[in-house]
């Protein structure tokens, strides 16, 4: 790997760190997302075209890979998506802003809380709505819990695909605890719709803090368990190290973000470098590795789980002192009035009726809001014509970007490694196809 040191061309400067694992670019020349079979073996009897998916347990849903194999070597690849396209963006145009909040969580159904956040932030930016501090910290807490949840799903399923079945059970044990916490807060285990334009849908319930404390005390031990199971496991190391290389330059050219980018030696995290919610007030580290392979993507996610646990703990420290503070903005034109007021105040009743039936209007304009979801930059572009329904909603899906890198990552690999590589890109098909 160090043989390529001299061929960096121009000076590498922040945020790119480390040395590239290969010279030049490996992005396929003709079409960036399709790896063509080399001309000299194209059409040969030995080259076999195989369909992986769309119904294959290791494709994490309904990803279809058309793979050309020469023996066990992958010589051509083309990813086909769209099997889970459900028209979320079109659907949201037909719903009021208020009702459309239920949709984003179902787009990326593993990083649901983060997706909900990005849409709510977009509405709030158009409305110029101030969010109370308590809501901001609770949002941060839930988004970090969700990040741990998402990485656990990644870790469990990717390890399972490489034969480490026990990892799956361990990861889903902790995931279960997180889902219980979500259920405690919002009544739903997934797709909570707990974030509301202006703050939170309800106050944080009594009993949440002790349970969440138990979890943050336990999580570092769980991470030690995972490390003990995997990090000195010879099979795991050999199946992941040096596999699925993607250099920093190629990753940037292909629009990668999140853990994939950070494992390619790009020191970039929107939580730190762009800033949203109150991430500037918490102490956390952004893990960066320079191996550019499947193993380093795993290490980035492992470190991120530890960092997220730290952030959750800091959020708890803050939130426990915010007892009795408001959890949603006091803007009666946008925010539902408190339930008990409906029995005593005519004004509140009218507001409630109007918001629920017609929906609130959002000033005309267009915004793009981006956050660091577990999979990378999750962006939301919305256009409002000033009415109660969005004119256009578009989600920048990190999984969509990640899958564009498949053809570059499978350069000169074996078919068994293909499974490890697709797993390490951690694409959620709902997010990809929308």
């Amino acid at each position, binding site marked *: 790997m160090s043989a390529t040191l001299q061929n960096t061309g121009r000076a590498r400067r922040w945020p790119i760190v480390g040395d590239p694992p290969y010279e030049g670019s490996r992005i396929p020349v003709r079409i960036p997302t399709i790896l063509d079979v080399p001309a000299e073996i194209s059409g040969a009897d030995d080259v076999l075209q195989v369909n992986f998916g769309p119904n294959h347990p290791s494709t994490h849903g309904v990803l279809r890979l058309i793979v050309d194999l020469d023996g066990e070597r992958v010589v051509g690849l083309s990813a086909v998506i769209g099997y889970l396209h459900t028209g979320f963006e079109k659907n949201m145009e037909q719903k009021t802003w208020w009702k459309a909040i239920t949709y984003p969580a179902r787009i990326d159904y593993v990083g649901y809380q983060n997706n909900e956040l990005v849409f709510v932030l977009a509405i709030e930016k158009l409305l110029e709505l101030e969010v109370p501090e308590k809501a901001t910290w609770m949002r941060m807490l839930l988004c970090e819990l969700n990040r741990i949840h998402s990485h656990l799903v990644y870790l469990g399923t990717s390890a399972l695909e490489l034969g480490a079945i026990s990892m799956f059970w361990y990861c889903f044990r902790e995931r279960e605890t997180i889902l219980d916490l979500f259920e405690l807060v919002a009544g739903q285990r997934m797709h909570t719709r707990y974030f509301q334009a202006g703050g939170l849908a309800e106050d944080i319930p009594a009993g949440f803090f002790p349970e969440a404390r138990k979890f943050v005390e336990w999580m570092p031990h769980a991470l030690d368990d995972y490390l003990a199971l995997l990090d000195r496991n010879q099979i795991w190391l050999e199946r992941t190290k040096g596999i699925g290389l993607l250099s920093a330059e190629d990753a940037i050219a292909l629009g990668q973000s999140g853990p994939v980018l950070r494992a390619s030696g790009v020191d970039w995290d929107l939580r730190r470098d*762009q800033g949203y919610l109150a991430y500037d007030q918490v102490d956390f580290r952004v893990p960066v590795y320079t191996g550019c392979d499947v193993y380093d993507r795993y290490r980035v996610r492992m470190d991120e789980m530890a960092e997220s646990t730290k952030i959750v703990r800091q959020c708890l420290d803050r939130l426990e002192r915010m007892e009795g503070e408001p959890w949603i903005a006091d803007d009666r*034109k946008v925010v539902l009035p408190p339930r008990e007021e409906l029995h005593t105040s005519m004004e509140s009743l009218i507001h409630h009726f109007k918001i629920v039936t017609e929906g*609130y*209007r959002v000033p005309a304009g267009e915004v793009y809001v981006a956050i660091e979801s577990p999979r990378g930059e999750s962006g939301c*572009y919305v256009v409002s014509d000033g009415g109660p329904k969005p004119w256009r909603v578009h989600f*920048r899906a990190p999984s969509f970007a990640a899958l564009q890198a498949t053809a570059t990552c499978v350069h000169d690999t074996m078919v068994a490694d293909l499974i490890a590589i697709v797993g390490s890109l951690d694409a959620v098909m709902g997010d990809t196809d929308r």
Partner: protein
Amino acid sequence: MLIDVVATDYLNWSAKGVSGYIGTAGGRDLNFPMTQGLQALPEAKPYRFAVNYHLLALRQGAPRLRLQCWLEDGDPVDSVVPVWPAADWLEREQYDLMGIRFEGHPNLARLLMEDDWEGHPLRKDYPIGGEPVRFSPEE
């Protein structure tokens, strides 16, 4: 780096008044009796479609840039795939759902919809719920 390519269809934009309840910025009450029923129309757009390119610089402060390219139905726009490989699927998606033709794209095929799908679903004149459903073989 190129973050996103997204097209917007502004067909019938600001053609009629927007109805509904007035939510306001910053909690100000605009529901004054004198302005009731007088709802400002959003500013007219020069063409029907806008193609937005969202760019991000990996620098301190994460500066972002949105490039807008305005066009009428059927107008082609040059593909940016030679500049940013990431535009491959992004442009295909907008071609598929919005019907924008990207000139010079190496593989401008449908991405999310089926290959033989007719129409572009995200256009404003695309019928909603118009898909015929057969309930029995006799129909």
